[in-house]
């Protein structure tokens, strides 16, 4: 069985970082990632199950890791060597149970909710965040029975999705794939859950102007989430800045009200909000801006187009950024991060209807983000965002493609682990 293994190797790390300056993902050939034989991980106990990945996505955070651009903040919450891949759909070889305790027969398809919080780590009692259902905020990702690792795909002990050997997942991480849902759609559940969490945590009010910067996977999923989960109950106007034609087309299809080239978003926000412009910044601006890029330029752009006391939601994974925060201070802008998922608080009373208002019977934490994401992927047909699938042995091409996805007309690039043809 083969897997792509990411090792701690400083010379290769440096070489990868150097080559990534040519283009994201281009350093894969010389970096710390290599294709190697691995054994299937052994489940630590009966609460763990083996999942054979069928399709596994390449995320922006994976690319940042391979490019050597990841913040050193993460050093203590990953463990080497690890098999990347946290956007995973696969098959439970021996069956198992999902997060709700529902039995799943052998051969069942499932997706992994990759956060490795207190429960997979057998930490009792759970930390307050896990206890509250916000396992994405778990502070124990370096402790317990597992090696450090904030998620499956960054942890030595679990394996990851870029592997034909499989990975192990705690039952609390397992979500059954609905019958009829394609693998392409299922692999979009994890990134969609990130978008759902970010969108539902934003303080959007009826009549607000909401801007989304970036229309890659996260940005487009955010557009779908805003359109399907927020707008029906809280009508708002959604403006999207997208760099490439296909992204603009998809953003419009997914429900954006106004779609413009990325460098025109501030102009569109200005016009829509009736603001004036002063020194490149708006006097008014959008009520909420989702930065789905996470670069200094995108954050600067976000701050330039959000209204005083508005909110910038940082969805794209940032590193160390150099940004002038005078505007944030002066205009009392709220800058909030949005990482992963957990449970989303129920919003309005159930009788008002709408997705945000639904509170499943018997739950104490609100709605599980992954449940909302599964529903959204189906409703918005987000499987269409999967543009390419590569076998593992063409990982260099795959990563280069993912690193240039927008330019090459793609959105989500994946590893296809279903076909044995061409597989090592």
């Amino acid at each position, binding site marked *: 069985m083969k897997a792509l293994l990411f090792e701690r190797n400083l010379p290769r790390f440096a070489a990868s970082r150097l080559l990534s300056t040519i283009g994201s993902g281009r350093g894969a050939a010389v970096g710390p990632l290599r294709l190697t034989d691995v054994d299937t991980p052994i489940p630590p106990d009966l609460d763990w199950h083996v999942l054979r990945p069928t399709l596994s996505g390449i995320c922006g955070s994976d690319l940042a890791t391979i490019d050597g651009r990841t913040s050193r903040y993460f050093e203590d919450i990953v463990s080497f060597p690890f098999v990347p891949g946290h956007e995973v759909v696969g098959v439970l070889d021996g069956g198992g149970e999902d997060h709700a305790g529902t039995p799943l027969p052998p051969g069942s398809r499932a997706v992994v909710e990759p956060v490795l919080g207190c429960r997979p780590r057998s930490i009792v009692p759970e930390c307050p965040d896990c206890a509250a259902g916000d396992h994405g905020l778990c502070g124990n990702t370096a402790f317990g029975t597992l090696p450090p690792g904030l998620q499956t795909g960054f942890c030595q002990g679990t394996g990851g999705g870029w592997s034909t050997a499989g990975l192990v997942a705690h039952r609390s991480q397992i979500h059954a794939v609905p019958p009829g849902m394609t693998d392409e759609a299922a692999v979009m559940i994890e990134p969609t859950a990130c978008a759902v969490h970010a969108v539902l945590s934003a303080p959007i009010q009826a009549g607000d102007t909401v801007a989304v910067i970036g229309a890659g996977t996260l940005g487009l999923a955010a557009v779908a989430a805003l359109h399907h989960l927020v707008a029906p109950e809280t009508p708002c106007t959604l403006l999207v800045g997208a760099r490439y034609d296909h992204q603009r087309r998809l953003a419009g299809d997914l429900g954006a009200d*106004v779609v*413009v*080239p990325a460098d*025109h978003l501030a*102009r*569109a926000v200005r*016009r829509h909000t*009736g*603001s*004036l412009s002063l020194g490149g910044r708006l006097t008014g601006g959008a009520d909420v801006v989702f930065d789905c890029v996470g670069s200094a330029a995108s954050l600067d752009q976000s701050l330039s187009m959000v209204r005083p006391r508005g909110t910038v939601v940082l969805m794209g994974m940032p590193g160390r950024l150099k940004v002038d925060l005078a505007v944030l201070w002066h205009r009392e802008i709220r800058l909030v991060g949005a990482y992963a998922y957990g449970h989303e608080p129920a919003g309005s009373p159930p009788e008002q209807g709408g997705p945000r208002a639904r509170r499943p019977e018997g739950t104490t934490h609100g709605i599980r983000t992954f449940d909302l994401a599964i529903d959204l992927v189906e409703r918005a047909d987000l499987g269409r965002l999967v543009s390419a699938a590569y076998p593992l042995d063409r990982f260099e091409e795959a990563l280069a493609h993912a690193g240039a996805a927008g330019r090459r007309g793609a959105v989500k690039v994946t590893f296809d682990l279903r076909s044995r043809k061409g597989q090592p």
Partner: protein
Amino acid sequence: MSPRPGFVLEVDRSTPPTLFWHGERFTLEKLPEGSRVVYAPEPRQPLADPVGAIRHALDHPHGDSAPLRDLLRPGMRLTIAFDDISLPLPPMERPDIRQMVIEEVLDRAASAGVDDVELIVALALHRRMTEAELRHAIGDRVYDAFAPNGLLTQHDAEDPAALVHLGRTEQGEDVEINRRAAESDLLVYVNINLVAMDGGHKSVATGLASYRSLRHHHNPETMRRSRSFMDQHHSELHSSNWRMGRLIAASGIRVFQIETTLNTDTFPHQFGFLQKREWEWGTKDRLGYLGLSQVLDRTPPRLARQVFHSIRAPHRMTSVQAGEVEAVHAVTTAEVWRQQGVAVEGQTDILTMGLPYISPYNVNSILNPILVACLGLGYFFNLYRGKPLVREGGVVIMSHPTPWEFHPVHHPSYIDFFEQVLSQTTDPVEIAKTYEESFATDPWYVHLYRTGHAYHGVHPFYMWYWCAHALSHLGAVIVVGGHAPAVRRLGFRPASSMADALEMASDVVGRSPTLTHLHAPPILMADVQ
């Protein structure tokens, strides 16, 4: 020797290639045999004594008007309004006609003891002129006498305190114009009538009006029913302005109209070949063309633009008339047609045109894609009387680089119009219905119009509406040598060469179409029989 009239050439095997403007460049195109090329009349002899002619006009008014000196008296309030930077094209060598006329009017006002005199640039919704542009238009003496004292202002169509609503026409059109002009004892309007469309009641009813007033005739429906803008009697744009002008007169506002016409001596002697018919080019013309073309091929577009916009045209005044608006304008229109009219027999399947670097709305600026469309379909297409040069369902082929480029100071709302409106629809009616009001009332555009040098937020809409008649009339619009994405955004088809364009046109008009080339500038107007 009297100047030769306009001419329609039928292209045969011996006809040399035809010159096409292509923005800040030129091309020579070999047109198919049997094509027609419409050439402008040669420049008429200018008035030998323009100042004397102006004095005569002021003393011998047309229509129901007393001579200017009899309208002036001590203690009165006199306002002189004049055309803005959009006229003439290209800007003329000094002294500008406006300077000559205004100096004469001011001399008479001074002689009559009139102290309360103000000058207003009739901007409508155009950009404010710079000091240098104003000095060029009215001369340093007038500028220095009025501007420092706040007596030279630029019409502000967004200042409620500076506007007065005079009422509505019988068709419900609001007439709202500049308060100072309306409350003066005498309003003198100084025109440069470059084409037949200019002047008449349009001077005050448009040049000194507000958006509230302008929207009644600057809309797709009116534009479509103006056939053409150059033919006042078949132009709904003019009908509306005439209704407004008569209401202005009925409101007690006394307008003393001064209109002037120019000859078509458009380019300095270095560009002499542009004024000639190709088969009459001498060695000097050929060398001039080749030398200039080679230099331009090596010149960065921005520098080429600067060079062309520094051109000052040698055109000279051919007539001046003053007095009552309608009577004056009738004489002016006849003078314009005398200079520019060319009789053309019948319509054509394909109309070709080479678009130059300049239009009324990009003097010292960039001819952005919207202005390219307006210059071709709003202006050149409408240079006719009778019928359009091109038949209904025919094709217009325009030659212009059409860069995706905008002047950020002059055309801010154009940028958003191009990106946010034309990306959704190119239908003028839909555009008007869905987007116009939000642009017209956008506080940022209003601010830039009032305090900077920006065209009003609604101005790109008007440019698109100018195209409305052509857009509904034509089967296709093809742009040769244009930046393909920009051309497509306009809803037109890009072609890499004239041969390509003709091939593409054959899909619309068949394999053996008739073709007519509008050889302008110099400006001409086709009297299509």
